[in-house]
């Protein structure tokens, strides 16, 4: 049971990161129906910029308290990423707003390659050990001596994610900017007729998503301890899947999807093997029982199928709820 609790903690932490990244995808998708394939790269840039700042500050005597270093690093990464996000939209997506749907998808892929290679030039191709400015302190969750723990870093990540998500929800559902965002998402031309400056709203949405991505990048890298110029790709992909799982274009959906994705991955890796252990069936066949004496973990699907598990859940959800968990069923009036 302790293992289960630990997996849950792992899953929620990872899920929080996914959720924050997924929000960026979902906002951009919601507003201009674009899968911003380069979003993962913005996450990576966030981690990298913060890395340089941390290294510089920590190297410069270390007079600053660790939390301050981390804060300064993140606060530097955020505007850099916002500018990158803004530029992405301005240079590569805006001119294609009326183009066939897949054209911006390809520019997004192109930009993703470009950003990766720029990062490669700046930060080398080696995996960078992410400075651990904050010493990890585990807190025990149960009475068992060697049981499940939650670390201060995990608590920080989960807490910060919740704060950011709440802030975003407030922004989108309680402010004029938020309403305008949703209106542009629905029908940009008419939104213009309501007095909304569409371009500004779209740019702002990109910048906002990029700011979240920057924070997510720092969280991810400092949690797992590495940053790499290609770290954004897989993370982005997972987060994008999470956004779809929750219902793309839907903020609450992205959060739910992110959390679920994190937990599915953790629990999937942790338990699929156990569930598909052929040795549970040794009663049925002697040959099997024989093999199981030597090898009690004759797992049909082990942690190697972790991603399969995640995608199967995704596909099942979409088969039964074609617009994702919380996606509005935009009924197509005939």
């Amino acid at each position, binding site marked *: 049971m302790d293992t289960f609790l630990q997996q849950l903690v792992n899953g929620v932490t990872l899920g929080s990161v996914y959720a924050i990244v997924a929000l960026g995808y979902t906002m951009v998708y919601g507003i201009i129906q674009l899968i911003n394939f380069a979003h993962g790269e913005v996450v990576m840039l966030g981690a990298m910029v913060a890395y340089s700042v941390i290294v510089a500050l920590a190297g410069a005597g270390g007079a600053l308290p660790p939390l301050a270093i981390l804060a300064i690093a993140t606060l530097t990464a955020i505007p850099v990423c916002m500018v990158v996000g803004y530029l992405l939209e301005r240079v590569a997506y805006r001119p294609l707003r009326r183009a066939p749907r897949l054209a911006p998808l390809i520019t997004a892929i192109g930009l993703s390659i470009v950003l990766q290679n720029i990062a490669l030039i700046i930060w080398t191709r080696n995996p960078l050990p992410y400075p651990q400015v904050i010493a990890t302190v585990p807190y025990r969750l149960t009475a068992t001596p060697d049981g499940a723990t939650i670390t201060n870093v995990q608590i920080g990540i989960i807490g910060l994610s919740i704060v950011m998500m709440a802030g975003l929800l407030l922004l989108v559902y309680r402010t004029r900017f938020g309403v305008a965002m949703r209106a542009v998402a629905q029908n940009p031309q008419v939104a213009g007729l309501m007095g909304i400056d569409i371009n500004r709203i779209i740019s702002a949405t990109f910048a906002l998503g990029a700011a979240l991505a920057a924070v997510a990048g720092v969280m991810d890298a400092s949690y797992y301890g590495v940053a790499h110029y290609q770290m954004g*790709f897989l993370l982005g992909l997972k987060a994008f899947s999470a956004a779809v799982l929750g219902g793309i274009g839907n903020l609450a959906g992205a959060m739910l999807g992110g959390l679920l994705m994190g937990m599915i991955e953790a629990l999937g890796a942790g338990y699929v093997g156990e569930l598909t252990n052929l040795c549970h069936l040794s009663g049925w066949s002697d040959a099997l029982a024989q093999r199981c004496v030597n090898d009690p973990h004759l797992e049909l699907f*082990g942690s190697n199928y972790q991603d399969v598990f995640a995608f199967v859940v995704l596909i099942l959800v979409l088969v039964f709820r074609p617009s994702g968990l919380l996606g509005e069923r935009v009924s197509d009036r005939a």
Partner: protein
Amino acid sequence: GKEEPKQAAAPRTETAAAAPAAAPAAETITVKIGSAGPLTGEIAHLGKDNDNGVRLAIDQANEKKIKLGGKTVTFEVLSEDDQADPKLGPTIAQKLADAKAAGVVGHLNSGVTIPASAVYNQAGIPMISGSATNPKLTEQGFKDIFRIVGRDDQQGPAVAQYLESMKIKKVAIADDATAYGEGLANEVEKTLKAAGVNVVAREKTNDKATDFKAILTKIKGRNPDAVFYGGMDATGGPMLKQARELGIKAVFSFGDGACTDTMKKLAGDKNAEGFICSQAGLPVVAASKGFLDAYKAKYKVDPIIYAPFTYDAANLLIAAMQKADSPDPAKYLPDLQKISYDGATGHIEFDDKGDRKLAEITIFTMKDGKLDPIAVVKGGKSVAFADFMKAADAGTPSASTTAPAKADEAKK
């Protein structure tokens, strides 16, 4: 493009030069050595490292003004990026064949090396890989394909034997689901099981992962005494770090892909302390201080993993050419097959298949922030490093293949 005439021209001069009586003695010839590996993509840092190894060897050879057939040779490195993409393997091989490379060092991964090897074989160009560990590479029956790194089924058992010698009861095994990582882990698993060690978990992640908490938590639940991970330092380091964070106290062990200083940086000094890893051949630090210094002097960084092997591979090609007194593959190939050479990674001889003969495998541990050799495994036996060195000093046959001079360096 513009380069075509140049490329077409280059081999011509070379072939002319290779013809014995054609030129006066003062003439120099250019011999091209291919260096193939991923220079872009996920594991480009390793590819670059390999390339650096080759370049170092070639630079040194050029300084020596080697003569072949009476002519001074300028060696030239043709670096090709295979992007670690199996599909590109044959294309790159063909490019090197077209450019009339006299020999090739590469590629990095088995997945690329295997399809490429067929092309080298057809073109009759000797190829030596310093890092492709998949046994299949040399099982294809190609006479001109060699490797100087331990095969998975040599290295894997070695680590396993060492673990076994530590009297470990329960082991968890993980790999990165690549040909390298999986192959190695499979061999470790096989050997351990045969020795009656309980393998309590067999997990997989992937070579791009950063999150290992899920499988580590599962492993923790099984309470192993040791964990073996088949994979590279880029994933091995973070894994080690996360394991310690989760409170896993088991001994961590790795293959050569994670037998690097990078581990210390990625895992954190404290976490890295005490992990075990293996490397084919005799310890880098010991056997070839010369190589290490030269590498550091030239590139301002430490070699990552396989650079000493590719360095040796390039030197092997040159040595064979010198023996045959010709850069013509057909001429020097027999000499390459029969070669006996002391390199940065120890003594090298090839068996019939083109694999390194009876390679020693050294076990290291991270001690006080440094990779320390603790044992040498050879022919299925693990000998403590100090004992091995003593034996080498005494000139006991068990270490006869090691050049004493190198062992001396190691002692100090």
